[in-house]
């Protein structure tokens, strides 16, 4: 894209929003409505042996973080006027994003 109009960001937000909604439904039914009455640590470990479920959670994690961080960044863009504050906010967002993503990544991969 030669010109940054915001349309792609807007579109991706809608897209990720839609996908997250679908994934959340799966996640919720899985965690709260399906499977054994009492979920054990071992059940979860077993599920994570399956690479399909691993990738499911990785996608879920990435989408949520992207969606959330882009949203926060938009809010900063809307309401923060000073450029230096904007840069500061960007740094904080990126650090938080990177931090949260690593935790998530470690959890999913090492389970």
């Amino acid at each position: 894209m030669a010109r940054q109009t915001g349309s792609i960001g807007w579109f991706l937000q809608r897209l990720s929003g839609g996908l997250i909604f679908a994934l959340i439904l799966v996640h919720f039914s899985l965690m709260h409505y399906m499977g054994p009455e009492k979920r054990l640590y071992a059940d979860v470990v077993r599920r994570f042996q399956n690479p399909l479920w691993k990738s499911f959670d990785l996608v879920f994690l990435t989408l949520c973080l992207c969606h959330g961080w882009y949203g926060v960044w938009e809010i900063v863009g809307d309401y923060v006027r000073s450029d230096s504050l904007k840069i500061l906010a960007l740094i904080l967002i990126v650090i938080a994003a990177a931090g949260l993503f690593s935790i998530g990544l470690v959890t999913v991969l090492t389970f």
Partner: protein
Amino acid sequence: MADTLGLYTFKIFRYNPDKDPKSRYDTFAVEVRQGMTILDCLQKIKGSLDGTLSFRRSCRSAICGSCAMNINGKNDLACHLQVSRLRGRTITINPLPGYPLIKDLVVDMGEFYRHIAAVMPWLVRRSPCPDRELLQFPADRDRIDSAVNCILCGSCTSSCPQFWFNPRYLGPAALLKAYRFIFDSRDEGRDERLAIVDDRYGVWRCRTVFNCDEACPKKLHPNEAIAGLKIEALKRSV
């Protein structure tokens, strides 16, 4: 029809930058009769209590868009709002939020008008016009009906938090104007106009807060128009 509604207290924002170090509220007691509008009361205050009270008005029939102000926390036209419709005996009147102040209830709408002018608000024709009218079917005419009815009173743009923080944002009124032409079946300037609204400070700045729809005294739906424009703009980029 001369039944009186009794005494009302008007609490009105006052500020004259030439004289006042800061703004204040003045209160006026007005005997209100059945059928009186907010504008009637303001005129009465100006005529008999304080001639310095300043506000814009002209048509007093809700069509010129001069008298938009913030009445009891809601943007509305002073001339079409009956006092009897409001709850409580105290009515608080502020200038439209979001625009620079000039004096009392008068605000500077220069930026607002510049945004309107920025969306190429005129019919663009490339192909020659016939001798007779350009045909337009009623269904096509209906599509722009609500956009055509906008009176540029500025209530919607004034209610938009995006505009408060980013006066560069075109705002709902200008986008509604763009919609009026982009969706006019006779127009041939769609691409240029879409290029203007498909911008960081155009449709993409709208966060669908819906304040504009709620603020519009003519019950138009700028937000719907913006949604329509977003889809068109997106089609352009993908």
